[in-house]
């Protein structure tokens, strides 16, 4: 099968595998490659040397490369590209690949591999990258013949960016990078039977859906990351469809920004830490239109009590998401943006039903003011409430339309609850996999994609340490990212669950031996700011904004604040815990076993 190859020196115009790869990336419009060199990718790195067309961003750890590529992808809508070496280079990138898989982020990961003759011999820095990434990629390739490389790259980008987006790995043995193929094969396995995602929905499904929405007395739109992935046009169409139908809108964590948080029909996020009104409306609606979301367990709560009396429509580009956990009455296979456009057209000049009664019930639920948190902490009455810190951060920055990234935990949920988003691609967070350490590298990727934007990583003091080494990356490329740490000296979400479930036995959830984040910032050439009291809060945020370079803000917050409202694991939408409810105790084993 191997095509005849010859050393590059025999024919100076012929291209090596490494050169073909770089050309292929340029053809795909790649601006940035996030990577880290090593033995098995040296030929590719030599090819990148002095090439002005692609900018290589040297991270400090391969996990950072993958998350930075994710951040770039989510902020720009373009695929993120990662380049890492074999063995540990590839395995370090796995968490980011798995994260992109769960959150449907377009990404192409180039991994070096030991020479083909050594594959399977336990060679130095050998890992079965294809085997390891098989179930956390949309597709993966081991390219054993340089003649296949050009076509493989093309297909990899096509697969990563179309249909339901996702990560694709191309594993390239070192000898394939060096070899000069005498021909370039189009992929033998091309053709529509191989890969052809359906984007346009059948007309009869559209008509049925429009009819169901038009008849509904208590409709709701439940939107997800699919609307963001479909492009900014999909968000515009969602707003248009909402406008003509009048249906209230809630969204998953991944879908925030598709619908403006200042709109009167915005219900807030739904699910475990969603608003009371969103979850109650989901429970009591008669027609639910799920648009590019996937009925995740964090969204549905207890499945047998999930929206028991509604007809459900599910629009998704991935057939396997439809009827996976929640059976629906009408599954519509297609791209969110395209289908929304089809529905608007089919709606035509219909008049929306009067939803006054439904809106009044929603207003009643809103009146519970589920996000109203206690003014003062019981344990630390003098300290800033973390919710307050996020509210002030929003108030002082929202006019600049910032891009917000987060790590994972309480701070992430507070950011989702109290930082309102008006536009898509401004909210970058690890939803499905829940990866601590995502936010800083994602902010780096987002900042590179939008050099003039204000990019803030809202972090916790525990999460930020998981990829803290990437401070150096931001310093090297002069990226003015801001890190705003809500420092409560606890892995707060772990501590909250220990209170709920394990009678406040705080097993290993205290953040002991924390670094001095201000000094740490300074050590990396960043500015460090510490905020300890509420009267310093606005000033601290303004100083962060006024500094032209990167800043860490170490904002000390009340240690005992919990993230509410909350649907405890195994409970129904109607069984939310609200501020003021007792949140410590224990649970039965069935509830404990749920994640």
């Amino acid at each position, binding site marked *: 099968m191997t095509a005849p190859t010859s050393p590059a020196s025999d024919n100076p115009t012929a291209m090596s595998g490494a050169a073909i790869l770089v050309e292929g990336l340029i053809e795909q419009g790649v601006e940035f490659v996030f990577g880290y060199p090593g033995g098995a990718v040296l030929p590719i790195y030599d090819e990148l040397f002095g090439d002005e067309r692609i900018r290589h961003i040297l991270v400090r750890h391969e996990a950072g490369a993958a998350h930075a590529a994710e951040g770039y992808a989510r902020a720009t809508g373009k695929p993120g590209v990662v380049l890492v070496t074999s063995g540990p280079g590839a395995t370090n990138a796995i968490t980011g690949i798995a994260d992109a898989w769960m959150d449907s982020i377009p990404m192409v990961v180039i991994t070096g591999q030991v020479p083909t003759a050594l594959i399977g011999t336990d060679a130095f820095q050998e890992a079965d990258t294809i*085997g390891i990434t098989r179930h956390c990629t949309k597709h993966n390739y081991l390219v054993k013949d340089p003649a296949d490389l050009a076509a493989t790259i093309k297909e990899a980008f096509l697969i990563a960016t179309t249909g339901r987006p996702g990560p694709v790995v191309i594993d390239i043995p070192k000898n394939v990078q060096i070899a000069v193929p005498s021909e370039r094969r189009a992929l033998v396995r091309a053709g529509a039977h191989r890969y052809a995602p359906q984007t346009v929905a059948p007309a009869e499904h559209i008509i049925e859906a429009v009819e169901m929405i038009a008849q509904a007395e208590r409709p709701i739109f439940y939107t997800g990351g699919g609307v963001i992935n479909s492009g900014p046009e999909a968000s515009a169409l969602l707003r248009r469809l909402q406008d003509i139908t009048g249906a209230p809108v809630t969204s998953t964590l991944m879908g925030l920004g598709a619908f403006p948080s200042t709109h009167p029909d915005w219900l807030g996020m739904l699910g475990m830490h969603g608003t009371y009104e969103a979850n109650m409306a989901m429970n009591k609606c008669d027609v639910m239109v799920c648009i590019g979301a996937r009925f995740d367990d964090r969204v549905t709560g207890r499945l047998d009590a999930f929206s028991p009396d509604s007809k459900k429509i599910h629009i998704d580009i991935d057939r396997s998401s439809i009827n996976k956990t929640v059976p629906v009455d009408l599954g519509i296979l297609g791209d969110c943006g395209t289908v929304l456009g089809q529905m608007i057209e089919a709606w035509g000049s219909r008049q929306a039903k009067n939803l006054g009664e439904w809106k009044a019930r929603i207003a009643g639920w809103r009146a519970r003011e589920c996000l109203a948190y206690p003014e003062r902490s019981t344990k630390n009455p003098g300290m800033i409430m973390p919710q307050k810190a996020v509210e002030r951060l929003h108030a002082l920055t929202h006019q600049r339309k910032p891009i917000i990234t987060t790590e994972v935990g309480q701070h992430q949920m507070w950011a989702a609850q109290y930082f309102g988003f008006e536009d898509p691609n401004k909210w970058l967070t690890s939803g499905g996999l829940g990866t601590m350490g995502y936010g800083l590298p994602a902010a780096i990727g987002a900042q590179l994609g939008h050099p003039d934007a204000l990019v803030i990583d809202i972090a916790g003091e525990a999460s930020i340490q998981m990829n803290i080494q990437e401070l150096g990356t931001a310093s090297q490329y002069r990226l003015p990212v801001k890190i705003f740490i809500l420092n409560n000296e606890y892995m707060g979400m772990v501590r909250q669950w220990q209170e709920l479930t394990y009678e406040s036995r705080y097993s290993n959830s205290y953040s002991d031996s924390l670094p001095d984040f201000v000094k740490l910032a300074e050590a990396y050439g960043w500015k460090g700011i510490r905020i300890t009291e509420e009267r310093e809060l606005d000033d601290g945020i303004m100083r962060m904004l006024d500094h032209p370079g990167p800043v860490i803000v170490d904002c000390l917050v009340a240690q005992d604040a919990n993230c509410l409202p909350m649907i405890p694991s195994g409970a129904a939408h109607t069984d939310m815990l609200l501020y003021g409810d007792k949140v410590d105790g224990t649970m039965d084993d069935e509830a404990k076993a749920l994640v």
Partner: protein
Amino acid sequence: MPMKIAEAASERHVLAVTVDNEPGILAKITGLFTARGYNIDSLTVADITEDHAVSRITIVTNGPPSVIDQIEAQLERLVPVHKVTDLTTAGPHVERELALIKVAGVGEKRVEALRLADIFRARPVDTTTESFIFEITGPPDKVDSFIALMRELGLVEVGRTGIVGMMRGAQGA
């Protein structure tokens, strides 16, 4: 309190899956079944086109209808998969399996084994004075019945191919 495990009646389904014959595709498919907790009762695979570019995989699985639907959707999601046909729901179809069955014995048992083989149209493909290897082809329940009979007559070992299936009539899957 013991954990509740969802239970719905399990159904047996035969899936015919055509795929690009590329490295790793079998691992992708079997790994998908393992990772998502689906069952494989049998799986057969061989390339079926002149240029060896396409393979046909026949998978016998079982699960509640919702799980079967997920299995098909998850299989279709794999890039190298061309088509998944659920032969069980698609209509009348033929299922065949081949088995090699070694039986050792002398005297009356040996004669009886040969006689039963004749009834089942199983063919001896190897013979010693004290053993046979029978080759039998048929639907899986026929193979099961023959093996059950041989168990009493000196069964030594069994090799089965697993099932291949095909729709009846002129239409392809």
